[in-house]
């Protein structure tokens, strides 16, 4: 998929990668650099400062049509500092860890803070909120995989996919990637910690053809521990089956219908919820869920909670991006909104406490019913099963939802044929209140965990 947007700032924060046995950076050395950064900031007159630093390395390979297509060696590092002069703030970052660069970066941040204005809410988090006894969450499982071994796995994945069905006529390849890194964070209140993490993935994208129309689909597995990845043959088979199942897609008539969002697309609906209850959206009054704390936003059977301390999980973290301790807590109980998603700045603006969510949420779980997707199709009887949504048509200020989609038409509780080139529209408020069932087909990939959603009614625009 390719997309065009008019977003004002393409993200300049370098994503940081590493892993070479020759890597000279260990945790103690990186902590020393953070300490130097904070001392330099104080020396240059800052009343408070916080600094983060990361080093990451990795390998990505792609095999296409049975042969190696790319071998990429990644190795990234970066440091960033934020200084406070009272309530004035400045930030700077660089990939250069030399002492000279550290001094220059601190100076750049201090220069900026001379021009920014007093923001009474700016500053470090409340000291009492900082993580103290740091949990080891088992997030680091380095994978000593050579390029040759990674190629062999990617090839197996692709070979199985290509052999699965004769309508598979082309491939975008099988890929394997492995990354591990370390991140250190410290501030002038004395917080200083760092830990290693790893992340490995395997994916496969196939192209099938029927009646001169091509379809593409993919499957992937991701885990912090490579031994827990799905087997290459399973990923390949799944990718091929998903691709072939889209062949012969028909158009939809314009209509109203119940809709099941398959687990991997239902995650997206939870991300729209998060956009609406994030602190920034609340204090800017730019959300369809403004001041909804304590209000019913889902049916009574819905509970949503954050579980940041699950060992080895992709979304786990002992503390957030500003060192605030993460805690297990409910966001929604009996369908009622219990908590916003706050960092310390938003918390001060709203006269609340940080929820340990600077940088995002950590393993969000929505409760599910003990029903399979198959049973849900039967319960729906007639309607749409959505497997892909496209485009940016979600307005989280008003809740208006209108996106391109594709999937399957269901009748008599069974999939009849694939459908494409239509839109689905409603309002997020109505979609959430219309959530009737959540399946037990949980998609565990990533930090937001859900099964498939059955929503009572949406508008389809088609031909």
């Amino acid at each position, binding site marked *: *998929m*390719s*997309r*065009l*947007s*008019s*977003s*004002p*700032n393409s*993200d*300049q924060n370098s994503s940081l990668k590493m892993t070479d046995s020759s890597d000279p950076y260990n945790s103690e050395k990186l902590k020393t650099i953070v300490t130097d950064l904070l001392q330099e900031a104080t020396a240059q007159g800052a009343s408070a400062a916080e600094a983060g630093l990361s080093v990451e390395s990795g390998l990505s390979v792609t095999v*296409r049509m049975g042969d*190696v*297509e790319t*071998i*990429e*060696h*990644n190795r*990234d*590092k970066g440091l960033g500092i934020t200084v406070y002069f009272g309530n004035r703030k400045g*930030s*700077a*970052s*660089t990939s*250069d860890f030399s002492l000279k660069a550290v001094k220059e970066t601190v100076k*750049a941040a201090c*220069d*900026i803070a001379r*021009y*920014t*204005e007093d*923001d009474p809410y700016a500053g470090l988090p409340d000291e009492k909120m900082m993580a103290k006894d740091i949990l080891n969450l088992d997030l680091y499982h380095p994978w000593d995989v050579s390029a040759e071994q990674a190629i062999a796995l990617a090839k197996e994945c692709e070979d199985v996919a290509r052999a699965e069905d004769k309508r598979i006529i*082309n491939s*975008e390849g099988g890929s394997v990637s492995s990354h591990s890194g370390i991140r250190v964070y410290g501030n002038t209140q004395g917080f200083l910690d760092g830990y290693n993490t790893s992340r490995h993935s395997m994916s496969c994208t196939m*192209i099938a053809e029927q009646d001169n129309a*091509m379809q*593409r689909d993919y499957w992937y597995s991701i885990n912090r521990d490579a031994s827990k990845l799905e087997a290459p043959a399973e990923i390949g088979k799944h990718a091929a089956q998903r691709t072939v199942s*889209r062949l012969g897609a028909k158009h939809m008539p314009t209509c109203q219908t119940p809709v099941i969002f398959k687990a991997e697309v239902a995650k997206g609906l939870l991300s729209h919820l998060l956009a609406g209850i994030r602190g920034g959206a609340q204090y*800017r*009054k*730019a959300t369809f869920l403004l001041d909804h704390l304590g209000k019913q936003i889902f049916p009574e059977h819905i509970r949503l909670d954050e579980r940041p301390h699950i060992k080895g999980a992709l979304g786990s973290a002992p503390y957030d991006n500003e060192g605030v301790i993460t805690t297990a807590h409910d966001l929604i109980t009996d369908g009622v909104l219990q908590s916003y998603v706050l960092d310390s700045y938003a918390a001060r603006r709203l006269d609340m406490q940080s929820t340990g969510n600077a940088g995002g949420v950590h393993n969000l779980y929505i409760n599910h019913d003990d029903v399979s997707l198959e049973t849900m199709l039967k319960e729906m009887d007639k309607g749409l099963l959505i497997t892909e949504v*496209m*485009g*940016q*048509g979600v*307005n989280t*200020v*008003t809740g*208006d939802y*209108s*996106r*391109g989609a594709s999937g399957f038409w269901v009748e008599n509780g069974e999939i009849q044929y694939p459908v494409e*080139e*239509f839109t*689905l*529209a*409603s309002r997020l408020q109505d979609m959430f209140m219309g959530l009737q069932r959540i399946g037990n087909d949980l998609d565990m990939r990533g930090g937001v965990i859900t099964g498939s959603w059955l929503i009572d009614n949406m508008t389809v*625009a*088609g*031909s």
Partner: protein
Amino acid sequence: MSYIDTANDILLSPTGLEVNDLQNVLDQMMGNSINRADLYFQTTRHESWVLEDGIVKEGNYNIEQGVGVRAVSGEKTGFSYSDEIVLPALNQAANAAKTIARAGQQNQVQAWKKHSSHQLYLPIDPLDSLTTDEKIDLLRQVDAEARKQDPRIKQVIASLVGVHEVVLVASSDGTLNADVRPLVRMNVTVIAEEGDDREQASSGGGGRVGYEYFTQEDRALGFAREAVRQALVNLKAVAAPAGTMPVVLGPGWPGVLLHEAIGHGLEGDFNRKGSSAFSGRIGERVASPLCTIVDDGTLDRRRGSLNMDDEGTRTQQTMLIEKGVLKGYMQDKMNAELMGVESTGNGRRESYAHLPMPRMTNTYMLAGEHDPQEIIESVEKGVYAVNFGGGQVDITSGKFVFSASEAYLIENGKVTQPIKGATLIGNGPDVLTRVSMVGNDLKLDTGVGVCGKEGQSVPVGVGQPTLKIDSLTVGGTA
């Protein structure tokens, strides 16, 4: 001073590297079936200033540099990079990149060739084009201008971003070329409130210029007024219709249509691999005869323009669709070579840490003959869409979407009520066959586009005249 001298001074000299060293590194890589190797040196300085709640509360400065090393052997690519521009790191990256090689023919590094370059923009450092006080004052003026338009404006977020980038490309095919690329961007987002209804709207622009661009021709204040106008229009919007109907697209940024429906599908990599809905269709009719579409990296000071692409190839205007017939694809060196054509100067990458691939620059449709008013009057019942959030495409099935952020109903040839944002969906290879009228009002966007492909973002431009599509699916609820 030539760009190569400037790049040499900034990128190589400080660490004692010389151009001859680059030739040696490339030489080492060229054994065993490697048919091209290249080095991409880059340094980027980036700053941003953000105003919110009436005060400038955030500023950020970032400096990055590094070198990307690529070895190509047929369809295979080996890639490595380093954020340290010194000879040992360069050699290490070169060794990693060439692991792609298998036993095969030995190729030679060509002697450096002379390159003629465009000068589409000045080699300035935009970060120095205004003083910090002037930058902050500009944001304050924008804030005041937006707020004074209407008491319903409750929040203004204004940002100013500047980038100064210097790149040097050295390739085994004899390319030694450099570019100095300024880029600035301003954005204004406002939130309007009336009773319990809230709407957010944004406006902005920029290009390969200094910040003074925003103080000229009332541009910055114009962005503020435009964001307010859109937010207030949307406060009155009613539900959009659902179904297939005639759609008139306004000029400029609605060219997102071309970028998604046509542009990505005509990138060389997808066509070389046969994964695009446009693969193998050169010479076929894919649009109405009214449609002529080009990609043009040579427009003066535009956001999507480049003196050379990221492989050192001079940019050009590339005919994609001429009077409805598919004429050509956009190519980088690797895909051009594999398809037996020349690079079109579309080899682009997000940074030294990313691989180049065929990407768009400024993609637009040439003007037609109709008066825009006449086009609207020709529609009995349909939609007139003038602003968009963005779009997305599946290049294999050809299905694309783009989401309107400002649109109106057309009833009996007249623009009537504003409607809520809705997604429009279609099929790339046939949507333009339904273009029945093209306006005489070609406009390019204001310089806001960010294109994402395979995880890499690059700045691009789009444009078009007003045009009418006889039937397109509109994703409303009414």
